[in-house]
């Protein structure tokens, strides 16, 4: 791997992990697996950056795809056959965050994550990319592989829904 690519990956690592965490619905261990798999894909030359977009946009698209693959794998594990095989192999995976991790996360973060989980996936994705990752609408569209118009619609609807979800809690706190 080229030195330049490695440097870019290193500088993007914390933000990329935040995106992986969002793609895995806040599951820390799954997000780590997703990042690991994405790095392995890149290192084994299965992926090449084509320079048709920015490196960050491309890399976030890879992470999103890898997270979807991981989700499908998890769904298989949760199926009847998968459970049977897991029992036979003696391996198990709990998708919930560990109790120590839950304590580490503050209440506001958990509340935001809970509200995001109530939004449709595309709305939650665009809000995360714009507000958390400070990306533009067009960059979010490139990562999500949908048109800018569609992303803008998800963005507006997501914001309105998010505010309505956060509002009662804010009133309760004050």
């Amino acid at each position, binding site marked *: *791997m080229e030195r330049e690519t*490695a440097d870019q*990956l*290193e500088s993007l*690592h*914390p*933000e990329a*992990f*935040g995106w992986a*965490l969002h793609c895995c619905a806040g599951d*820390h261990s799954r997000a*780590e697996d997703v*990042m*690991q798999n994405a*790095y*392995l894909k*890149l*290192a*084994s*030359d299965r992926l090449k950056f084509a320079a048709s977009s920015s490196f960050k946009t491309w890399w976030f698209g890879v992470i999103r795809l890898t997270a979807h693959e991981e989700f499908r794998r998890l769904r298989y594990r949760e199926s009847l056959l998968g459970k049977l095989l897991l029992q036979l192999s003696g391996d198990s995976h709990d998708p919930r965050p560990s109790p120590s*991790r839950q304590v*580490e*996360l*503050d209440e*506001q*973060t958990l509340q*935001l*994550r809970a509200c995001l989980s109530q939004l449709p996936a595309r709305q939650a994705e665009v*809000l*995360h990319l714009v*507000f*958390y990752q400070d990306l533009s609408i067009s960059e979010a569209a490139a990562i999500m592989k949908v048109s800018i118009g569609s992303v803008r619609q998800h963005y507006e609807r997501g*914001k309105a829904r*998010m*505010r309505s979800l*956060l509002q009662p809690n804010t009133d309760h706190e004050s």
Partner: protein
Amino acid sequence: MNPEPDHDLRARFSAQRRADQEHAPAWHPRVLQAASKASEFRLPCWLPITAAACLLLSLTLLQRSETPDLVAALPVLFEEPDEPLFASLDNTSANPSDFLLPTYLTIQLP
């Protein structure tokens, strides 16, 4: 001065980003190097298929060569008689009362 639009949401997401980044795993570039080295020594995809085919073929041949000759392996159930079968039977079967029969009714065995 206009406040920044969506400031409320942006502030919440920023807080979440800070919390996440505190617990993000450290960057380990060794993973990338290890994978690159592993990919250099990757076996060609036809090799396991060919190996499996060879193994299957050799097993089939081995099994075939180990199969015993059934004729030789089976015990002898009937010994071949010295005389021809039914030699004791008289072809000219003449019974004591045959002389009473008319000539045309006398049965002649071939």
